[in-house]
């Protein structure tokens, strides 16, 4: 498995420091801090309800935080005056439920944002759609509708749609949780290829084997806190009993 070599002046793409967030009365994030540098793959793991998905959604401001600071590609996400659309042009997000737009073809799904947000010419956007679809191995699905694709294909198309906006960082929120093992494999392969290309990524996943192979850094969340963090090695030799128990059941 490939690993991105980090340079000493690697710049921070995503930074969370002491982030607190509660869905009252439930405290979901209780002082979470971590950093992702350019070209790094950070994998968030933890039990359901440990706050990992919330942490990920805060990065793209789908949740607002109570206190602390989040900086993403130079945008101060925690700032109420944040330019949301500028942030989201730099951040690509892929969800568990694909969320392709069912009334548009795959090509239209992909060209929609580049055309309407970035003002790219239609022809150029279509050219780009072909390119990103080829990247996820779906160049023949250009003119089909989402419902005509399998779950794994839909998820790969959703990844292509995000790529078309040329984000500086990609967020993956349990993108394979709705898929069977075979379809999971084809989606994970696409993500691996992205990592090999040097894409900065933050992902929430329950695929421990995959996490071991791809992660530059693993963050294990427990009760809204970063309970243990380190290289992918912590998955095989965890330091805390909680992580040991989690990977013991997770493998």
């Amino acid at each position, binding site marked *: 498995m490939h690993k991105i070599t980090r340079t000493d002046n690697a710049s921070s793409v995503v930074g969370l420091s002491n982030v607190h967030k509660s869905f009252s009365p439930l405290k979901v994030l209780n002082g979470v801090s971590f950093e992702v540098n350019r070209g790094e793959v950070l994998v968030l793991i933890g039990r359901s309800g440990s706050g990992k998905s919330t942490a990920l959604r805060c990065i793209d401001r789908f949740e607002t935080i109570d206190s602390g600071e989040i900086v993403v590609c130079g945008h101060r996400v925690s700032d109420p005056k944040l330019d949301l659309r500028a942030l989201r042009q730099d951040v690509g997000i892929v969800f568990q439920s694909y969320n392709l737009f069912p009334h548009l073809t795959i090509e239209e799904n992909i060209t*929609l944002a580049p055309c309407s947000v970035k003002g790219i010419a239609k022809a150029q956007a279509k050219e780009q759609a072909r390119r990103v679809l080829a990247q996820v191995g779906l160049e023949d699905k250009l003119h089909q509708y989402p419902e005509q694709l399998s779950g794994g294909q839909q998820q790969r198309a959703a990844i292509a749609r995000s790529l078309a906006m040329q984000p500086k960082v990609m967020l993956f929120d349990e993108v394979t949780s709705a898929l069977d093992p075979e379809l999971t494999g084809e989606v994970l392969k696409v993500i691996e290829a992205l990592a090999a290309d040097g894409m900065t990524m933050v992902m929430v996943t329950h695929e421990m084997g995959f996490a071991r192979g791809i992660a530059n850094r693993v963050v294990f969340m427990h009760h809204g806190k970063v309970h243990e963090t380190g290289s992918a090695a912590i998955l095989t030799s965890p330091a805390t009993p909680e992580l040991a128990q989690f990977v013991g059941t997770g493998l």
Partner: protein
Amino acid sequence: MGGSLNANHLMFLGYGALWTIGLSLIGLLGGGVAGFIVALCRISPNRTVRVLSAGYVQLIQGTPLLVIMFLTYFGLPALGVTVSPLMAAGASLTIFVSAYLGEIWRGCFESVPKPQWEAAEGLALSRSQRMMKVILPQAIRIATPPTVGFMVQIIKNTSLASVVGFVELARSGQIINNSLFEPFLIYTIIAVIYFVLCYPLSRFSHRLEKRGGPARIELEVA
């Protein structure tokens, strides 16, 4: 006295039926435009706009159309604004329809799955782009059957315009009956004409609903 039903009477009824259709179209178009605005206000990010539009819907839905007609036709002249029966009936129907369609359409907007809104947001689309390019096309598919079904209500409710002296189908029946005194025959004819106008719409709405069924399920999964 009065004679019997003849071709002239039927012509008169036909003319009335045309006005029923005309008034229905006024109600549908006027109420459709106003109702779309009401629906947008109901899901506005601005709380004041949401509360005000909700109040409007409650107020209109809690008022009989007949009373709205009285208010516009008899009430406005008392305030120095004269209105023709057509204007009064058209305005009343527009107000009435806007409250109902506004509420139906709000439900349709909201039944587009929330992840669709989020996916559109995640792609940096502006609020109006999300609305026009992602939500509206899906909402229209969901909204078509109930909207066509509601057109039946509009057609039937135009009969209330007869009380402000507007000569539509029901009123033209009354006028003929005043000279012929054949209420059972004449109102049966009126009922049949209303049925002929409404039934195809009901059927059409049901058919759309059946066809829309799978589409909606697929939307929820996607």
